[in-house]
């Protein structure tokens, strides 16, 4: 299907965003302490859909909350009352603005694990009810490597609407999915803006969008051959190199918590007197207790084995199981790591060591 493209400018784009916020439940990056997190917004003054990628947290919590109440329970003299908790505040029809391409891709990656065998219907509903509006980056940051991975960043269909900065102040708005096409046409933006401010793209537009992509793709410092990494890692379970790359790790788990594709969680209870709450919260395979069993047996008792699991899960196991890498190359783990470990460096260093063996 051929989706529509429109040409506008900064003022038109902002009008488009304001219209979305006025008519839809909208989430967008909101700045707090220098970091941007996706929050519900009603006006452009509260948020910045062009927030810098290095300072923006992922959209994962809008689909997989950081800590969600599973249920409440009360022990009474007549028995235990279990109640499912509050209504899902992420289940409504909504639009997310300012999503980075890597972050949008992470949803396609997460779809695989949430939709196999037991279907996570909460997640699925949140996915179906969401329109993703994504601004394409103009330039890669130092930690970025999305273009090196197993997805087509240029033609990504994990997002519904893409916003591309053109030359001479022009901005292109392009539908990428049927959902995006229906969404844009439903906004009726051309009724409110003049032909100069908002018009259908002409023959030259596709070429200009391509030029922008080429300039963006040319700005990457980090490059890797993911197929080579997939293949080499799959053959070197026992390499001592995992000890070298994980030596500095303080097992703080930050990398997993900020990662848009990490999806491990824990189930925990908190009870005071007769009333308790059960939570489902983010967890990480870097935690020493993650696989620790009652009685003391732990298949991954030491740090390098946990790092091996992290690297292998991302570049071997998930790919084997679900056909995609469990990494989108966003670099969020690297930016947030207190000891400056980079997943890019880890998998490349281990792969390189495997060549020497």
């Amino acid at each position, binding site marked *: 299907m051929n989706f529509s493209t429109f040409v506008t400018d900064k003022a038109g784009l902002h009008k488009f965003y304001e219209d979305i916020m006025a008519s839809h439940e909208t989430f967008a990056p909101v700045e707090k302490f220098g970091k941007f997190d996706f929050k519900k917004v009603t006006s452009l003054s509260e948020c910045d859909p062009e927030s810098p990628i290095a300072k923006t947290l992922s959209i994962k919590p809008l689909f997989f909350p950081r800590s969600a109440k599973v249920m409440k329970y009360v022990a009474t003299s007549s028995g235990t009352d279990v109640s499912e908790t509050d209504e899902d505040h992420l289940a409504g029809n909504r639009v997310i603005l300012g999503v980075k391409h890597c972050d949008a891709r992470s949803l396609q990656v997460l779809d695989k694990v949430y939709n196999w065998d037991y279907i996570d*219907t909460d997640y699925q509903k949140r996915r179906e009810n969401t329109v993703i509006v994504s601004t394409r980056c103009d330039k890669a940051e130092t930690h970025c490597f999305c273009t090196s991975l197993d997805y087509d960043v240029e033609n990504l269909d994990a997002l519904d609407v893409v916003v591309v900065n053109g030359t001479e102040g022009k901005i292109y708005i392009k539908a990428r999915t049927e959902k995006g096409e229906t969404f844009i046409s439903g906004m009726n933006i051309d009724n409110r803006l003049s032909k100069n401010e908002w018009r259908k793209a002409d023959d030259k537009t596709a070429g200009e969008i391509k030029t922008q992509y080429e300039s963006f793709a040319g700005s990457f410092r980090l490059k890797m051959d993911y197929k080579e990494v997939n293949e080499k890692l799959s053959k070197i379970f026992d390499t001592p190199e995992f000890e070298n790359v994980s030596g500095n790790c303080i097992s703080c788990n930050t990398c997993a918590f900020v990662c848009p594709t990490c999806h491990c969680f824990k189930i925990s209870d908190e009870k005071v007197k007769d009333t308790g709450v*059960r939570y489902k919260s983010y967890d990480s395979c870097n935690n020493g207790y993650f696989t620790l069993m*009652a009685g003391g047996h732990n298949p991954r008792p030491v740090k390098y084995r946990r790092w091996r699991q992290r690297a292998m899960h991302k570049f071997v196991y998930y790919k084997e199981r679900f056909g995609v890498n469990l990494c989108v190359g966003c670099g969020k783990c690297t930016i947030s790591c207190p000891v400056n470990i980079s997943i890019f460096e880890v998998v490349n260093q281990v792969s390189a060591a495997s060549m020497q063996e």
Partner: protein
Amino acid sequence: MEKLLVPTICKVDKVIQETPDIRTYRLKFREEGLMEKFTFLPGQFVEFSLLGSGECTFCIASSATRKGYFDCSIKKAGVVTADIQNSIEEGDEVGIRGPFGNWFPLDDIKGKNLLFVGGGIGLAPLRSLIQYCIDNRSDYKDFTILYGARTSADLCYKDEIKEWQDNKSLKIMLTIDKPEDTWKDNVGVVPKILEEVVKPVIENTKVITCGPPIMIKYTIQSLIKLGFADKDIITTLEMKMQCGLGKCGRCNIGSTYVCKDGPVFTNEQLKMLPDEF
């Protein structure tokens, strides 16, 4: 996902002190009609909640051929299992999710000789299959159970073992690690007794084994030595699990989800996994 994690309330119908540190909890769903709908096969497991303390993974230790209840045998091993033993009494309520996981390969073992090799609390998952096979006894040929524990006091299901011993169609062999004054049965670790006393028929036999990880390891080595093929050795893995739904990422061994693809594996399948369990 959150809704899938909400347990259903069960009442503890009976608590049986099996050994000094193992108790069996016989459970029934509180809500009428749910027990009949709770269908499971030998080898499957449940998530067992002591509300306020937490949720743990336990195999179902009884067979659905014994209707109206299901058993979980729990050994005091960590925080939640200690809380369970210290606080749960008959009539109390617990939360259950499940059944989860795969089951013993019932089609493959039909028409075969069965050899069960259990150690300690590892008899719990085997008991589900043993009961199932006893209740369908004509489907199987020779039926041997080798069960060991550290001491005679540590043998689980003592009353039921007596019933098995009285059943002439079953061959029961017991062993403990060290001699005791009143003990008349075998003495020695399970793999040793397996090799020296049981001396099983290899042909047309399926072996189902479970016990402490170290016992499973040496038992499998003995079975291979005796000439069993990897595909005829079946075991059930103990891994840390939480969701039971193939989502939380805890039980992964390589790209295998023990909670979905297991916990029951043949040795042929285990050999394909990274050595990390």
